């Protein structure tokens, strides 16, 4: 058995959850907000008035599988 084989059979060190949680909250929320603007803004609900965002990402929204119109 070589050194490379020995390093493979051990589970890698995990990242403590308390390190992940703050990032998960802040970055997770920003990412979800971005998904909302691509997938649902000016459809079922609107933060900004008008239809410009909806119409601009229209084709992506359809092809990514979000309900549209």
């Amino acid at each position, binding site marked *: 058995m070589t050194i490379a084989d020995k390093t493979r059979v051990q589970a890698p060190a995990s990242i403590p959850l308390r390190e992940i949680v703050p990032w998960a909250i802040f970055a997770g929320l920003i*990412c979800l907000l971005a998904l909302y603007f691509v997938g649902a803004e000016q459809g*079922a609900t609107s933060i900004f008035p008008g239809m*410009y965002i909806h119409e601009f990402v229209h*084709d992506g929204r359809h*092809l*990514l599988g*979000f*309900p549209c119109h």
Partner: protein
Amino acid sequence: MVRSLLVRGMLAGALAGLLAFAFAWIFGEPQVNLAIGFEEHMRQMAGEAPEPELVSRAVQSTVGLLTGVVVYGSAIGGIFALAFAGAYGRLGRLAARGTAALLAAAGFVVLILAPQIKYPANPPSIGEPETIGVRTALYFTMIALSLIAALAAMSTGRQLARRLGVWNGVLIAGAAYIAVVAVAMLILPAIDEVPADFSATVLWHFRLASLGVETVLWTTLGLVFGVLAERQLEPQRRRPAPRGVRV
């Protein structure tokens, strides 16, 4: 460490979005155009004026599509990196690349494939404007139920794996996930707003293209992120392997 993973996730997601855009442009746009042609035709038959274009078709099908898919890819990539940070080192002996590949496959099935079996993607001209609220709520409910079922199945599977072995634990968790999702699909109401004259071929090609876009996106994300995460977390694995040993 998490910040660096997050940046890598969003980069991998943006790249995945670029490839998915290319796929969407080649295979998806022709179907979108056929569907819009149908919509215009129906409008003419009804004697209505054509819908004014707020954003031209030329912009929608290029810059708009690119923006939508790349922003979506980066956001999915960011969330993916956070999930990876939690899963890494907690999935048996799987290293970075294996964890990323498994997580991407699971993410695709749980967040895209299962919800779309119940509520598939629809091209323009399918879907009543009055029901957009209900349809959006049902679609996200289906995603949430699929995710909850997967997390519950995973937690049960981990406990069972200790007593029955990993193979049996994973099989039972998979079966439990399918059973719960099937019940959810039976309970949630069906949506069928396809106009009687709409081409079945266009609908089939559109939905296939839509699933293709997501497949390209999640596959690229999982494989590219795996390499980037390995460079960060397992630099020792990138050393050339001893002669005759494959790593």
